[in-house]
């Protein structure tokens, strides 16, 4: 019904569905910003070895729980420079409190440079290099943008590396859930009757199995020869096979309401097959909700990863993911003495927010009824 016409001169009125969406989307400023932010995050994740100033495993007893290094723009002589620099850091253990105490050594000055030589790495396991986006030259100065953790490892680098895992881990699962949910929920809601009943029973059954024990059981049942990453991936897939039920239920509800709508009847009268009716007509009218759910699911996956790692059921050290970083920061010592360790939470929040705004924008853009 909303087919394309060939008369280009009619512009807006003949633009295709997708063109309309893109145009409307671009008017939603916040959504556009979110899209940009997400693209940046994914780029960082893709090139994490290059972006991170240090190797995430690089530790040192000297810098245990070092606070974020202060960037200075004005030299001790009072000269302002666009290139920030940091001072050297000395440390010693206070034998009374057993804490490592830091002292800034202003005699050592380290300017921050772009494209510096640092820890060697292999980009994507293929190309060797040791050039990092930014950092300080040499071995003595340390740039802890977000401070250091309990082994003296640079938190910022670890967050950057963690992005790679956290941002990718949920995508497949979400996609699977989506496909299953829409198809099965749609069939169930549209056809009703026996098909509906069977699918409903299955859904009910799957949904009544609570997540945490299921997770634990699955974690135990999988072959233990696999690496933690592979295990987690497998579990995510398995869980999504159960997770589709949520979406399916809602889709079904909507379909059951919508199938009585006029345009559906009209399509049938035109001779459209059932499948075509579902895919071509019902789904687009449901698209906005679908998109809202999709963009809500991805951050849901990210948050699940953090929650499950907190319980000790998801990823665990030595794997580096945002969930793992938060889990090791989840204690009073961090909150009181080293609060910068909670910054991975900021990364999570930003990404989740961005996804939400993006989804919002896409939903608004896809809404066929808005003018």
């Amino acid at each position, binding site marked *: 019904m909303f087919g394309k016409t060939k008369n280009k001169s009619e512009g807006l009125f003949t633009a295709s569905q997708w063109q309309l969406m893109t145009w409307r989307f671009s008017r939603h400023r916040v959504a556009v910003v979110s899209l940009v932010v997400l693209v940046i995050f994914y780029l960082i994740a893709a090139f994490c070895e290059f972006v991170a100033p240090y190797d995430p495993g690089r530790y040192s007893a000297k810098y245990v729980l070092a606070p974020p290094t202060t960037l200075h723009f004005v030299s001790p002589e009072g000269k302002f420079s666009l290139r920030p620099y940091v001072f050297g850091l000395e440390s010693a253990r206070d*034998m009374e409190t*057993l804490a490592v105490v830091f002292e800034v050594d202003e005699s050592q000055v380290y300017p921050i440079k772009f494209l510096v030589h640092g820890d060697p790495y292999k980009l994507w396991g293929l190309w060797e290099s040791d050039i990092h986006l930014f950092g300080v030259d040499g071995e003595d100065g340390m740039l802890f943008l977000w401070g250091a953790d309990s*082994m003296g490892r640079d938190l910022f680098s670890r967050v950057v590396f963690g992005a790679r895992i956290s941002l990718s881990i949920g995508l497949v699962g979400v996609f699977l859930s989506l496909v299953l949910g829409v198809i099965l929920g749609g069939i169930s809601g549209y056809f009703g009757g026996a098909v509906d009943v069977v699918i409903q029973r299955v859904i009910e059954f799957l949904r009544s199995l609570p997540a945490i024990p299921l997770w634990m059981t699955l974690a135990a049942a999988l072959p233990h020869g696999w690496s933690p990453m592979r295990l987690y991936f497998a579990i995510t897939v398995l869980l999504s096979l159960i997770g589709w039920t949520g979406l399916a239920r809602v889709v079904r509800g909507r379909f059951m309401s919508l199938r009585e709508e006029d345009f559906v009847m009209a399509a049938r009268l035109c001779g459209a097959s059932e499948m075509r009716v579902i895919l071509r007509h019902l789904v687009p009218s449901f698209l906005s909700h679908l998109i809202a759910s999709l963009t809500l699911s991805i951050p849901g996956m990210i948050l699940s990863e953090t929650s499950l790692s907190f319980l*000790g059921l998801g990823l665990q*050290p030595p794997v580096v993911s945002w969930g793992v970083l938060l889990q090791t920061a989840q*204690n009073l*010592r961090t909150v*009181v003495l080293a609060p910068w360790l909670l910054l991975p939470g900021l990364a999570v929040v930003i990404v989740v927010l961005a996804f939400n705004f993006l989804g919002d924008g896409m939903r608004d853009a896809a809404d066929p009824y808005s003018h």
Partner: protein
Amino acid sequence: MAKLSRREFLIGAGGVAAGSLLAACGQPTAAPSPTQAPAQATSAPEPTDVPPTAAPEAAEATAVPTVAEEPVATGYTEAPMLAELVASGELPPIEERLPVEPIMVEPLGEIGQYGGSLRGLVPDPTGESPESDWLRGTALAMRSADLADIIPWVVKGWDLSDDQKELVVHMREGLRWSDGELLTTEDVQFWYEDTFLNTDLTPQVPIKWAPGGEPMKVVIDDDYTFRLQFAVSNPIIIDHLPTLNPWSPKHYMSQFHIKYNEDANEIAKSEGFEFWYESFQFHAQGAQFQQDADRPALDRWIYERQDNMGNRYYVRNPYYWVVDVEGKQLPYADYVERMSTENLEVMNAKVLSGDGTHHSWFLSLENYPLYKQNEAEGNYTVGLYPDLRAAEYGFCFNYTHKDPVLREIFNDIRWRKAMSHAIDRDEINELSFAGLGMPRQPIMDPTASFYEEGIDQYFIEFDVDLANELLDDMGLEWDANQQWRLRPDGGPLSLSFEFWSSKANVTQVSELIKGYWAKVGVDVTLKPEDQQFYQQRMQANEHTIGVWAIGGSSETYSRQNEPIRYRPPWHWPANSPLGGTEWHQWLTTNGEQGIEPPEEIKELWDIVAEWLLEPFGTDRYLELGREMLRINAENLWLIGTVGLVPRAAIVKNTVRNAPQPGQALSVETGMWNYYQPEQWWIEE
């Protein structure tokens, strides 16, 4: 960190301590072993002279409480709350409650005042708390402070026959259960015939009480004397006495026993069980499982009640048979409480806010700065207390690995030496233990009577070149990229390193070790695992490297239970065999199953067996002990990183006569029990 010499340890009551082996401390009698309780130590009158490990203030010279030699007081006094009950007629007067010769204890600091409550926190409603649950118990005997003697506690004394096959035990006349009934040999007989020998309650008698394969016999002489008889000469029985509680309150428990009450099965059913012995065990249970507040006990504080949050309340035992040198009946504190939270951080927060009177078990060194920061607000003092654990982190290679190539490699002493030399223990010490530990192999602590200087320092130097040399010597060549070494049969030398991941520093140290071994060309894959799964893998001989915290390594522990750290599989075989599982099989089945171990292991096994049969303190005992340690040290089957790490402990400033920083606090010595909690008192 200052290395504690054995002499210093022994002289300073710091390390010296009781063998209160929790070997059945408060173990629920769901187990076939008799209801046992932790033994406590008496004290040595020596001052605590331990040089501070990293503690800021030098520890004051204080003595651990002593048992008085001569009774001092003439009259007895009791706590006000009990005096009230006597006045109202609910309790008999104090003279009738105490035994004819109560034990007299000289308090650590000063004579205390009655009142108050000792309170421990626990981050798991179903777990046990050394700060509260363990404080209550008492046992037949306990170890003296210098480890040389076993001192009678509940009983008055004993005599071991010349052939060491019979032990005559004299009980204290007039000692009563917490409900007022006398403790006599009737209770001993009941325990022996109706629980120990009863196959429903005790399906299998522990080896400890069945030397020579036959369960020991108990013969009753009169109301206050009984004998233990063994099939073979058994001098080690003396060392086992602190874990023995051969009595059960017949006047109360017989109602649940089918032999004395034909309705016992019905009673069981009405309580939700199927059989009488289930209900019997339920009522007999102790420790944090005790549910029956009516069951009589001999504890310092008896169980009163609990709520569904995991909080438990104990109240003083009006019949407790210990007094101080002025005749005041102990304990001073009226109550012991155990408050539970759902997780560790809430518990930590409560500790910081000043909740609880003493903490240690659940504290960690990492949080020390936090504890220190809040000292004023919480009105407590936090300090470092020496511990006797041989190593915080020790591991074995699986010497009976299914893969024959790996088996050959692991059994080569050069391999073990190399892997040990490749570890930077100072760095581990700094990163994981605040630099407070001592780099050492997991051999006994210096307080052992046959300890030799330097026995814990074999192959301990951090020397990557030496490690590489040894590996080259073994013929393990590098691959084409000079990155990893190759196995003799070609593939890359890659080891799977499984470990139980719940303890933060296990993960950390494992990561560090992976890094160190990478430098000598050994590739390690870290696999954090669930504890149960890990144990199962070990039991099934499927693991490559077995990692654990190496406690239970002291002389006392080894005598009272089993020298688990000094013979295969270097841990409890039933649960977590670290290495050489199949050797252990071979040795315990006399060659029928398992794999035959090398000569050194066979020799070690025989030496340990002989050591266990030798009475404590003889020259032969010392000689065998030295041999045992030497063989283990030279062969390095169990490799360690850092040991003797002091523990952090907090004691509130209102609690008196309690241990101070610098004094030893260790599981090997029964934790707080060594300091006689009955003589702690609370200043209002």
